Structures are given as C-alpha cells and as structure tokens.
C-alpha cells in the first residue's frame, strides 16, 4: 500500500504531507499549546480536577483536549534530576484505525495527509474511539460527536501554522512537511546522542511501524511507556481482508442511508 495517504485517498494533485514533530527535549511544560489549540478551535474546558499527577491536570487526550502535556518527575535519574515534559497530540497515522472504522465517512483523510473529523457528518457512533490505538479521539458529552486534533485543517489550508505550533515558546512543537520534519528530527536525535543523552529516541516516525508511520511524531527522552504512550502501537484494522469487507458493507449502508435521507428530503 502506498505510503502517500493523500494519494491513496483520491487526492491526485495534492500538497506535501504535513505534520508535527514534537521535540520533548526542549518542552518547558508551559501548556501554551493546550490553550492556543482551545482558543483557535473553540474546544471547551475539560474539567477542573487536581489530579496529583505532577503538574498534569489535563490527564489525557480526548474530545475536549487535543493537546496534552504530560509531566514525569524523575528526580532520581542518574547524573541529574529530571522532570520530563511532553506535549501529546493526535498522531495522524498513515494507517488510521479511526478512519477505517468510521461508518459515515465523518473521519476524513485530507489532502495534507492528515486525519480530521467532519462534525457535520459524524453521527457519534463511537467506533473511532475504540479503534484508536493511542486513545486520542473521544466523544463529547455535550454534542455527542467525536472530536480530535485537526492539525488546524482550516489554518494550514491558508498557509498558516497550526495554533499550538505557532504559540510554542521553545519550538518544541514544529510544523511542516513531514519529510523535512523527519530529517530535522534525525539531526536532533544525533545531536542529543552525541551529547550523551542516551535515552533519546524518536517515537512514531518509522513508516515501518504498526501505524505506517505517524504524521505527528515525537522525540522522547525515555521509553514511550514512561510518557503513557503505547510502545508498539498497531492499527486496530490491520487485517486487511476483514477491513475491506467492513468498508464495503459500510459503503452499502451509507448508500442506503443516503438514498433514504435523499428521498425524505425531496418529500
């Protein structure tokens, strides 16, 4: 299967695949990304609960949290005490389970290779929620719909930087063509390794991984589990024949539903 998700999804003449490289080694845990995202996308407040999980009161990604900064205290880390911070986001997978299981076509692959929810199409079935290997997407109680990071689809279509990346004070969140980001990440990784930061590693970037490579990938300073990330995520719909059957039946159901609604509309 092509590694060019936009072409695979019917965009003949499309822009380069765009993504995020989140370099957690320079994250200062300020959470500007969380706020900038909410301000731009109108995402509602997600609960006022003190978790006791260091300075992380956001807890996880979900319908009303599209950027989430994790805080991990490692004061006993050999050599120097550490306080790891990392801004998590939708991975915009090359092989996206959410997209595969959506029965209504609400989940959409864009011409930038990103994955977005079409709010006007989503019927709130929740299939996508279960299908995401990262627990990114969620259903919002207030409107019943599924929501997640759009990689600021509206902004990048106009050549603007996504809100989180634009706000990020230390360029921990970098936005750009995925190819460029991969090169940059590799260079940064080498710099860190040369500096003796042994645990530094890229996460999600490898096109050979279980999601065909992420459109939003990370440089971590420790193992993914430390950050609450699955170490070896696999797209939940990897069994292709089954998936095809599923898509076919979904398409048929969609056709039938559309016909009915179309008739109703005419009446």
């Amino acid at each position, binding site marked *: 299967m092509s590694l060019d998700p936009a072409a695979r*999804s019917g965009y003949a003449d499309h822009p380069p695949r765009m993504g995020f490289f989140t370099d957690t080694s320079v994250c200062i845990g300020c959470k500007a990304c969380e*706020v900038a995202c909410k301000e731009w996308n109108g995402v509602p407040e997600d609960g006022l609960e003190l978790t006791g999980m260091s300075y992380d009161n956001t807890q996880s990604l979900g319908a009303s949290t599209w950027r989430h900064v994790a805080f991990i205290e490692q004061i006993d880390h050999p050599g120097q005490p550490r306080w790891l911070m990392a801004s998590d986001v939708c991975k915009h997978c090359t092989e996206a389970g959410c997209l595969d299981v959506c029965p209504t076509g609400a989940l959409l692959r864009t*011409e930038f290779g990103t994955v977005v929810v079409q709010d006007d199409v989503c019927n709130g079935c929740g299939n996508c929620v279960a299908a995401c290997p990262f627990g990114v997407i969620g259903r919002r109680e207030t409107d019943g719909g599924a929501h997640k990071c759009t990689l600021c689809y509206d902004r990048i279509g106009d050549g603007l930087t996504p809100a989180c990346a634009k706000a990020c004070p230390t360029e921990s969140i970098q936005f750009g063509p995925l190819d460029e980001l991969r090169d940059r990440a590799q260079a940064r990784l080498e710099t860190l390794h040369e500096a003796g930061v042994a645990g530094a590693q890229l996460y999600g970037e490898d096109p050979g991984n279980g999601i065909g490579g992420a459109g939003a990938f990370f440089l971590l300073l420790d193992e993914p589990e430390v950050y609450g990330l699955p170490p070896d995520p696999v797209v939940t719909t990897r069994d292709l024949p089954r998936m095809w059957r599923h898509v076919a039946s979904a398409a048929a159901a969609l056709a039938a539903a559309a016909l009915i609604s179309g008739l109703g509309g005419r009446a």
Partner: protein
Amino acid sequence: MADRAWLRWPVARQLTGPDKLGRGAATRSRRTDSIAPRIRGADRVVKSVCPYCAVGCAQQVYVRDEQVIQIEGDPDSPVSRGRLCPKGSASLQLTTGAAREYRVRYRRPFGTDWEDLDLEAAMDMIADRVIESRRKGWQQEVDGKPVRRTLGFASLGGATLDNEENYLIKKLFTALGAIQIENQARI
C-alpha cells in the same frame, strides 16, 4: 445545478472517483470543502502587546464586525517572535470571555447586595466622594512644616495599566494633594 447535485453525494464520488476506499476526497462534506480559517474574513488586524507579564510579547488582534475574533502572537516581534505562553494564548478568553463585567455595580453602605447604577451617576458620586475624603484628610502643616496634602484617600494599582493612564492618575491625584498612590511594584 440541482440536477448535478447528486455528484456531490459521497457514495457517488467514491464509486466514480479515485478514492475507492471512501476515506478522502470522496467523503468530503460541503462544509469541509468550504472550510476557512476565521481570520481570513477579518476586517482588520490590529497590532497589540500581551497584557500579562512584562516580557512584552507582541500580539495581532483580528477584528470582524467590530468584534475581536482571534488574538495571536506577532511573528515580527524581535522579543517574542510570534510566540505566546498559555496566558497570552488565553487573551481572547480574557478579553471576550464570560467572566468580564460590563455594567457598573454599586453596593450602598450597609447594603447586602449589588445594585445597578448608571455610569455617569457613578462618576459624579465618586467625584463627590473624592472631594469629601480629600477635605476630611487634609493636612496643611505637619509639625509646623507645610505639607499641603491629604491622607483622606489612596490609590493602588498601575502595573497592569498603560503609561499614559499612570501619568494621568499620578498627575491628577498629586494635584489633589494625595500621596498614598501605590502599585504592584511595591508588592
């Protein structure tokens, strides 16, 4: 147009177009096709400065129909290079959010609740109160030395205000003889 509208129908697009899986081009809704950043429609972009701390990050304020619709960092700034912290990023909520009060509120002496009060009336009452407190706290001399001042009223605040505002406050209150004029710089 109407007779070709069916071509927009996702299933038709999926069956007739290159997006055989129905996960991309074929499933796009009309709204998705017309998506645009809300600042594209801004009537003007106004240059501003973040009101929180004293780093002085530059902001761009987007206005449409005389409403602020978005506030972002200004990439031109040699101080902030377009970036904002969480507080600066919350400037839109600060300035347009539900917590802002837009009406004068008045609590009369010994009152148990707020009352409404017209702004003009409030200004007039405050002017009277200043004159009266000034008079009550007036000191022409202290220990035989002329001081020509009042201890009758005080002011606290200024670090969140503009230079021009502080200037008028200091000028007016000093001319009235007030000396208890202070702000967060002391705190």
